[in-house]
């Protein structure tokens, strides 16, 4: 998910608030819940459409807000007041990334042609983590066209150990090789 700078700024501020209030876990859970809540198209239309008055939105959000941490409540109220409710969409992800960043963890994806066992995944996590110097948390994705091997994408780094990748690089080198004579 690509996050816009505005969302990141709000997430940074909320993160600092959570740290001071010592309620990191509660607020992280809140942000995840909020983002999940607004991801449905119906709620999105209600939140971002121009036909609904702002007061109406705040009122309809009230029951949900009461379930959240007081600091999260203030955060959401401020968002509505500043008409920045679109931040809600990515706040869960942005907050999670911020927490990961602070704790030296980083998320990634592992792609393989077959299902990997949890042990394999954790082995990969520690191997990749050792190379980039961070704790890596991998999610698995199935991709049959890799033929064999695994491919790990962490942030903007790609570790390609697939048969498909090998074949491609071999093809490239064959195409560019100069023929003798």
């Amino acid at each position, binding site marked *: 998910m690509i996050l816009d700078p505005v969302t990141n700024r709000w997430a940074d501020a909320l993160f600092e608030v959570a740290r001071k209030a010592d309620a990191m876990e509660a607020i992280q859970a809140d942000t995840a819940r909020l983002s999940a809540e607004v991801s449905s198209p119906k709620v999105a239309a209600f939140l971002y459409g121009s036909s609904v008055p702002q007061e109406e939105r705040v009122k309809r959000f009230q029951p949900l807000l009461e379930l959240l941490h007081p600091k999260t409540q203030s955060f959401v109220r401020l968002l509505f007041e500043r008409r920045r409710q679109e931040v809600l969409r990515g706040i869960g992800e942005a907050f999670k990334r911020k927490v990961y960043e602070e704790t030296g963890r980083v998320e990634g994806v592992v792609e393989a042609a077959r299902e990997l066992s949890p042990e394999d995944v954790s082995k990969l996590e520690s191997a990749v983590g050792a190379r980039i110097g961070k704790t890596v948390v991998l999610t698995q994705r199935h991709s049959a066209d890799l033929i064999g091997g695994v491919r790990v994408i962490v*942030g*903007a*780094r*790609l*570790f390609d150990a697939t048969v498909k990748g090998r074949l491609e690089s*071999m093809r490239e080198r*064959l195409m560019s090789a*100069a*023929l003798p004579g």
Partner: protein
Amino acid sequence: MDLRPAEVTSILEKEIEEFSQDSGMQSVGTVLSVGDGVARVYGLDDCVMNELLEFEGGVRGVALNLEEDNVGCVLLGSATEVKEGQQVKGTGRIISVPTGDKLLGRVVNALGDAVDGKGPLGTSESDLRPIEQDAPSVVERQPVDQPLQTGIKAIDAMIPIGRGQRELIIGDRQTGKTALLVDTILSQKTTGGGDPTNPEQVICIYVAVGQKQSTVVDIVRRLESEDAMKYTIVVSASAIDEASMQYLACYAGCAMGERFRDEGRHVVIFYDDLYKQALAYRQVMLLLRRPPGREAFPGDVFNLHSRLLERAAKLADNAPEINPRFSAGGGTLTALPVVETQEGDVSAYIPTNVISITDGQIFLEGNLFNAGIRPAVNAGISVSRVGGAAQIPPMKKTAGSLRLDLAQFRELQAFAQFGSDLDKATLAKLTRGERLVEILKQGQYRPVEVANQVMIIYAGTSGALDGIPVSKVGEFEAQFIDYVNDTHPEVAQQIRDAKKDIPAEVKTILDAAAKTVTAQIA
């Protein structure tokens, strides 16, 4: 091209042996948006400026804008295959082109891929050179003192170009700018007999930017028919190519030239033309949302041209000792950029920029062209700031009086139009001037060897032509040069070797020959 299965097998074998198990780490990103030949990519954290990027489907791109959360890049191929969300790989190398002898006689595009249908270039990985390179530093250079003979009398005599110089060719459309370049290429055959393996042979690189494809084809055909393609490379980014290719072609051509320069060879590179290159650069930069400046060009359009032209140089003889990047000293790269003006306006943005960067300019004028004075060089406002040191001594001596006679003629010509009563001295100056102007006329694709140039200019300035009708000057010139070379074949070499003026005995021969030919014509 013959493909022998045994060779392919040997390459395959090598590949399989080198097939290692370790996984390489690559920098990747995701396409955020694509359109108009530019793409924005999220990720690519380790990306560097001008890095070559690879999109899915084989399309390549160059990173030009490194921003906080995305990378702006131009596509070097069809944008239709690139889609939002696709993966982009960083190659970790600056955009490079193949260089070396194998490119001679070939037509390539801005990425160095052959486009002449004659098969692959056959260059290897070690022939690749980055297209952006630092220009030689102050200590790695030496002053320009060797002539680059263009074979054009008006230029070699009055606006001489030295090897390692940057001389701008500026003029409106249809004033003979490209014709002048082609003549210069043809003239280089005299340096090494047209043999590219001869170290004395000047290598020519013609970079066509935004030209019509038909123009490029015409030039290549002409060079082939005159046997000049053997020592020439044509880099073509014609009007049909992407703006990014048009903007990069000049740097690609320059990198190819630098390879020869650094090996101690002599190269002349033609950028035809830099105005179109600036337009292509403006298009790319506006699409990348860089802030526009004067005439909507980006702020660094001056640097765009200055860093390109600064790479033209004459290397010091001890350059390899100073910097191991040079394998031999004394090599030169001469740049002849072309700028097309609109309605003769040399004070527009790009022309003034390039005028201030180069070591002089050759101004071609539409009025002269239409009046039949071709090449239409305006000798009055054309200058060469460093070429004087590079002229052969007899030419320098002879051309000194030519310049003076022509200046006086131009002054009197305007004056003489008002009255018919002219004194004898004025009439004599007009007569001389008319003949000198006639001498400087020259047919296309007919470069004149420098010794022959000296002979005819000597004849003109010594007054030998004053008694010949203007209409017969061309005939005189042809017969005079043939006569001298037939009867005294040693004269040409004596002129070339002369340390000062034309030797007195040669002058006597030339004077006598002029009399004989005058008598024949009359």
